[in-house]
Every structure is written in structure tokens, then in C-alpha cells.
């Protein structure tokens, strides 16, 4: 603790549970979630608010939790990736990611799931273009986004990207 740090007591509801904690003024919301509350599902991938790995839903809006200070979240209702599954059962979006191989290393996945959740709430039947726009703020280095887009479209009941029609295979020998 630094001598000059000021602290605040904040109350936040996360995934339906109320937490009351004392935080330093300068603590980022993402560090509050990860270090103070041990909710390590929300990840950090950059320091400029560019990558989306820290995405959560706060008061109904998709927010990058690294771009907020913990004191700013006082009184907020927050959803993180830990709240998606119910009673250990994956929700339909998570099931779709699993089925469609929408993750490889899994590091961007919590952010993608929150972005996907928010996108589908706003638009339950998005086009491929709308899905891509909806996850534009989430960087993935592993998948090339193809299966992530497919995962979100699949749960929406829309058609997958043209890839599904363009599949060609051939056996040799």
C-alpha cells in the first residue's frame, strides 16, 4: 500500500452475488475482479483497452473492465464469464463454442463469450457481418475468427459463414 493511496468501500453485484470490499482508488476493475475477488475468468491481454480479453457486462452494457476503475463500479450489476454456466451446465452459447471448436488456447474466450452474449441480446439473429462487427473489439490470435463467428451464428440459428458450403475434401491413396 502506498502512503498516498486513498481507498473506497464499494458494493458490486456480480453474477447475482453481492460483494462489499475496500479498494484502492487506482485499482482497475479487472484487477478487482481477478485479484480481490479471485474471479480469474476475466483476462488481461493488453494495457490500452484494445484487446477485449477483459470484457464484462456492466449494467447491461459490454464494457472493457481494464478501462474502468473499481470505485467507478460501485453499485453496479456485473456479469462475468463465471456466471454463464448454470449449475455446472454450459449455456447454449458455450455449448456452441465447444461444438464448433470456437476456442483453441481459451484466453480470449471469456471476452468473446461476453461479447457474444451482449451481441445476441441486442440482435438475436445477426448476419455474419454483424457478428464480426460485434466482436471487432476482441482480439484472437489462435482461430482466425472463423469458428468463433460460426459459434455465435450457430446459437443464433443463423447460417454459418460460407465456409460451410465451400468445404472440399479428397482422399489420396
Amino acid at each position, binding site marked *: 500500500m502506498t502512503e498516498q493511496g486513498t481507498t473506497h468501500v464499494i458494493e458490486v453485484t456480480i453474477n447475482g452475488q453481492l460483494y462489499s470490499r475496500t479498494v484502492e482508488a487506482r485499482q482497475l476493475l479487472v484487477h478487482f475482479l*481477478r485479484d480481490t475477488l479471485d474471479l480469474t475468468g476475466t483476462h488481461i491481454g493488453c494495457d490500452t483497452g484494445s484487446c477485449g480479453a477483459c470484457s464484462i457486462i456492466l449494467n447491461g452494457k459490454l464494457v472493457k473492465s481494464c478501462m474502468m476503475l473499481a470505485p467507478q463500479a460501485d453499485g453496479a450489476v456485473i456479469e462475468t464469464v*463465471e456466471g454463464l454456466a448454470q449449475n455446472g451446465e454450459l449455456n447454449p452459447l458455450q455449448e456452441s463454442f465447444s461444438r464448433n*471448436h470456437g476456442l*483453441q488456447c481459451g*484466453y480470449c474466450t471469456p471476452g468473446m463469450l461476453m461479447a457474444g452474449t451482449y451481441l445476441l441480446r441486442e440482435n438475436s439473429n445477426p448476419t455474419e457481418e454483424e457478428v464480426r462487427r460485434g466482436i471487432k473489439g476482441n482480439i484472437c490470435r489462435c482461430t482466425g475468427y472463423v469458428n*468463433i*463467428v460460426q459459434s455465435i451464428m450457430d446459437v443464433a440459428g443463423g447460417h454459418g459463414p460460407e465456409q460451410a458450403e465451400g468445404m472440399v475434401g*479428397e482422399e489420396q491413396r
Partner: protein
Amino acid sequence: MQGEGSFIDDLGIHGQGYAWFVRSPYAHARIVSVDVSAAMALQGVYAVLTGDEAKEMCLVPFVQIAPGDGSRIEEWPLAVDKVRYQGDAVAVVLADSRDTARDAAELVEVEYEPLTVVVDGVEAAEPTASVLHEKAETNVAWHGVFDYGDVDFALENADHVVKIDRLHFHRFSSTPLECNGAVVDWDKGSGVVDVKSNIQMPLFAAMVIGPALGVPINKFSFSSRDIGGAFGNKIAFYPQIAALALLSKKAGRPAKWTEYRTEHMLSSTHGNERTFLDIEVPVMADGTILGVKARAVDDVGAYLHYEPLGAVIWSQVTAGCYKFKNVQIDFTSVVTNKCPVAPNRGYSRMQHLWMLERVIDIVAHELDFDPVELRKTNFVQPEDYPYLTPNGCVYDSGNLPLALDMALELADVDAWRRRQKELGTGTGKRIGIGIGSTLDSGTNNFGQARIMNPDLPFSGNGEAAFAKLDLYGEVNINLGTTPQGQSHETTSAQVAADILNMSPDDVTVTIGFDQAHNSFVGFSGTYASQFAVTGLGAVMGAVAKLRDEILEVGAFALQAPKDDLELRNGACVVKDDPSRSIPFIGIANLIYTNNAVLPRELSAKIDLNCRYVYVPPFEVPDVERKMGNLTLTYAIQIHVCVVEIDEETGVVEILSYAAIDDCGKRINPQVVEGQVHGAAGLGIAAALYESFEYDEDGQLQEPSFYEYHAGTAMDIPDIRTGNIESPSPFTPNGAKGMGEGGGAALHTICNAIQDALGKDGAVVFDSHNTWERVYELLQSSQGSEPRGVRVISREVGPA
């Protein structure tokens, strides 16, 4: 998926401190003084370690593999006497919180005396350049000439010679979304250095830093859990681990370090940046390309980590997909005041293959050949496999012409060619169609290191795996690899389940890597496109042993001959009378807790714990002639794309993108597809958006994702895929490693832009083509400036 992954920042040890590195703002400077007093005075600071202290605590500098002048390049856990790139670590602080450590790091006062900076690789090789490592007296870490066939004869006698002044493969990296991290605990009592980290070749790290720290390998305890992407960029951060170990030793408590993004961009690793000069290509009138001659200068950054291995790794694909026999490459590895490089996805082969694909395309344009026909004329043909290449490497299997045809069809090229014609000129838009053929060479023979340095005691390759029945009959597998999303656990379970004839859901594969499992060899890790061969080869061997042991015990328990038995769904049964059976729990009981029941010969030789090392069939290469079988497998990828370029802005939009891959037997098609998408995505982004550039003061211009434009879902198009399976005759399962991909996207995008620039257009000379550069290429296509390419044709007189 549920936020319950265990990435390195999620882990910790009771009593740990948080580490923060103090890094140089200068690219090249003498360290005059380091004053840590203000930092130490801050409440909550446990310890600060400086470069001089770190050197004092070490026995020797890090193990280093370059010969000659390069061997005198020294590196310690922290910078000593000099800093050599912006971000070079000068000190490291340990404190009670991340914020305290960061605050304290800012209080460390370092006085620098700036020196002349060198950021151009070609200039750095000149004798007049400012020298980074005084003891080496040169920036040339390695130099050698690879000479196969007789390219000079070919150049003198060919119908045409195409000369290209310069091609440049740019500096970028896969920038995994998770940065590096480690929790390092040097335990005074036991002398064990426990390292939890996301390093992807843990034993390589141990072998390099062990001698420096005075810690034998068996006193290290490396482990990893989930890794958030690596792509080769997590191979070489062992200096940080060594510094943290010393910090932990000094402070008497564990040191946890989580790299932040800017720190990663500055000081983690970049990919090799390679300049090709004076390229000469002899071509016959019928389009047969006879070879290529070039100089290559590889800019490897300020310190040698995995380098100069890159100086020889490219020769796994000396002639790329093509049949020519005459290749001469004059290769120089040079240090510069930039971030050190590490084997970024595609390592060293991608750079060379890109150059070859540019050459094919430029030859096609200059000599009016159809790029498709020119490739087919020069491709290794399906009937040629196994194909012996000019330097002794053997291409195992494949069908390049078919892959090309499939890619063209998948990308709808016929329709786009018509569209391109219709579009004509003067509409403000241009369409370009590009092909990129590439190889992903997998499973290295580390003997090639001797071609770079004959004194290195390295050769072959291998991977280990461990399969057992646990006390209640559970099937468990431990791997030697460090998976980062390539589904090693899933595919291993699949392979094991096939051998044991049970459901993969009942096979447990331990997540992550742990040295304590003792399922590793020196080469263990995940890199070099080899898991499907080495990792799965090891799993197959271990599980086959386990199967045999289970049957042995079952034969005794069921009083039946072994040949009458089989395994079914977790039990050993008599084939013709399944009512006679014993479940795995019964087998385990006999060996683990009930062994007096067994005959002594049986309990003496069976323990249900089976370790197996897969060793590929390699020999030591011929160092004199720089020849040998350097790689076991060659996966193929051919990509085709259609781009539209806006003449007013240079913006490139991808209209169609297709990728065909052939990795032999596909163990898990969905996983393979994922790798193809991923490699293409990174390649497209590198070709159009991602680049690490330094200004003349050695300041990195893209130190965060704000400037470094990592490809997003709006930038990467939908990727259509198709595949061929040409099983490898050389691997246990017919599969080939394929994760890296060979950089096909870079070749494809560059060739598409070239096509859009048209006949007599400017030459795409760089692998990185932002809208600005494309705009410049469009402008210079109209001008009369030298294009950097010349064709010399032999007069063919009457006979």
C-alpha cells in the same frame, strides 16, 4: 469456457512478492550507474536486483550456441555494462503488490550514456557499424554459404536470368494474447528452483540457465498449466526466469511476474526479419526454373537466444515446393539494437518460402508465364515422392498440382478472372488474384544445429509420454508437450482410447506440463509443427506398452492365453466368452495392492506405469557439405486469394480466400482446420496490418495494440478450406505436424497485390503492405523509376 482455466497470472504461492522489471528507454547505451536507494526506501519493497549483482550471483553467462565471433556474445539475466535494445532489463524489483513494485521500479535511477544506434540489419553487418557486443568485435553472429548444385553454371547457360535487387521479409510476431509470466521460487532449504510459467520449451530453458545459475537440471521444477497462445514467442524468455530466480534467492521469497503488453512488445520476442539481396534466377524458355542465387541478411535483434539456428533452419525447404536443384544462399545472421527474435510461427522457413513465392510470381510476370502453369511446371510432382531435395532433405508425400487446382476452384478464380477483365482500368478499383504455395516442415533433426556449429552435441529429436493405470484402474496419460490450444489432450485421449478400445471420455490426459511427471526429453515442448508425429508417437508407444501389460495380467487373472484376450470398454475379456472378464480396477488391484496373489515373474516385470520415448529415424547431417535429412515431414498448404485494391487510397479488401492443406492422415479434422484458420489469420494480418518498426533512435513504433494493428474479425475474411490426405510413409500414424502453416497467407496476399499492379507494375518487394505502401506501389507503377527487377535474355542464334 467457464472461466476456470489456470493461466499463469491465475496462479501463485503463499508469501510471494510481485516483480517488476526496470527497462532501458535507450536502444544502445552504456550503463553509468544504477541507484536503487529510493526504490528500496519505499514501504512494501522486499528487494531489488541489479545487473552487476545478477552477474555476481552467476557462475557463467547463458549457454550460447554460435561459433566463432558469435560465441563471444554474452548475456546475463540482467543487462551488464550496456543496454542493447529499448526494453533491455536493467534491474528488477520485488514488492508486496503489483502496484508497489511498479511504483518502486519508477524510483530506480539509472544513468545512461547513449551510444550510436544501429537498426538496419544490412548496415549492422558492415565493419564500420556501431558494435553491440564488444567482445565479439562484430555484429555478425554467423555467416556461411549454402551451395547446392551449380547455380553459376545455370545462370551462364539459362535462356533468361531474372535479377531482383531486394526483397524484404518484415519484422512482426504472433503476439499471443496472454503475455509471458512466471512464479519462481528458489527454495533455500532444498535448493530446488520451482518455476511455474507459460514457457513453451521448459527444458531448453533449464539447459540454458542451469549452468549460469549453478542449478542442475534435477533441481529445477518446471511446470505449466494453461497457456494463452505461444506460437514460438514463448520459447525464449529464460533471461526473465533466470532474473526472477536470482531475485527470489536474494529476497528469500517467491517472485511472481506477469508481463504487461507494452513490456511484451518491447522485450519479449519478435520474428526474424530477413533481407534478400542480389537475387538471380536462371529460367529456361519453357518456364523451367533452374535455381536461385541470393544473399540473405537475417536481423536477429540484440541478443542470441535461439539464434543463430535460423541460419540453417530455412534449408529444410531449400527449393520450396519446386524441383530446381541449383541453390546458393550466402547467409548472414546479424545483431541489431532491437528486441531479440525467437522462432515465431513459421520460423525461418516462412521467410525463405516467401522469397521463393515472390520469385516464382515475379518470374511469371516478367516473362509472361501464367503463374498457375509456371508453378505446375516447376512443382515437385506427385509421382516424385519420396523426393530427395538438393540438400538431402526428403519430402515425404503430397500432391501439389491437385492442391493448387483445388484452391483455385475453392476461391472461384475463374469467375474472378472474368470480373477482373470486366473491371478493366480506370474504374478506380483493381482486382488481383494471388497464389501462395508453401510447406510446413515438421519434426526437426536437431543435428542441423551442427551445420551452424560443428561443435554442438545435438542431433535427432524425440518426445516422451507416460501412460498408466492408476490405483483404481483409471487410465492416465502425461505428456512432454506444453499445449497452447492445439488440443493435445483431446487428440491424445482419442489415440489412447483407440488403442485401448474404450471411450476417450474415460481417458484422462493430465493438463499441462510438469517436470515431476518425468515424461520429457531435452527436446520436449510444443513447437516446430511436430506434435502429431512426436507427441502422438510417444502416446501411441506408451499406451501400446500399457495395453500389453494389462493383457499379461489379464491372462493370469482369467487363466487364458494372452492371444485369446482383448480389451473392451475398460475391461480385459476373453474374446469368445465375454462373461469371463476382469475390469481395469481388478488389474490395478493385483499389481498395486494385492501382488502376493501373482506369480513372482509377473509381479517382477509388470508395473502398469509405461514411459515411452518416440525417436524419429534421423542421422547426424554432413556438416562439411551442409546436407542431411533435416526434417521428417512436410505438410503442404496452398492458398489462393482475390483482393480488390482502391486506387485512390491503396486499401486492400479481400474478396475471396481459400486454403487447401495436406497434412497426411488427419487425426482430428476439426483441430487441423482450426490451425489452418489460425495460421491464415495471422499471415493475412501480418501481410496487411502488423509490423514492428524502429526509428533511427531504436524506438519501437508499435509498443502496444494501439499502434500494432493485430488483425480483428473485421480484418480477417471468412476462410474457405479443403484438404487432401497424403499419408506420410515416415511416421507411426501417417500424420504430419502442421500447426505453423508455412506462412502461406503472406505469400498469397503479396502475390495478389502484385497481380493487381499488373504487367510492368511496381514489384511488391516487402512482405508488409499497408494501404500506404500499396498506394506508393500504385504511384511508382505509373512512374519511370527503376523497378528493382531486370531480365537478361540470351540471344538464341541459329544452330
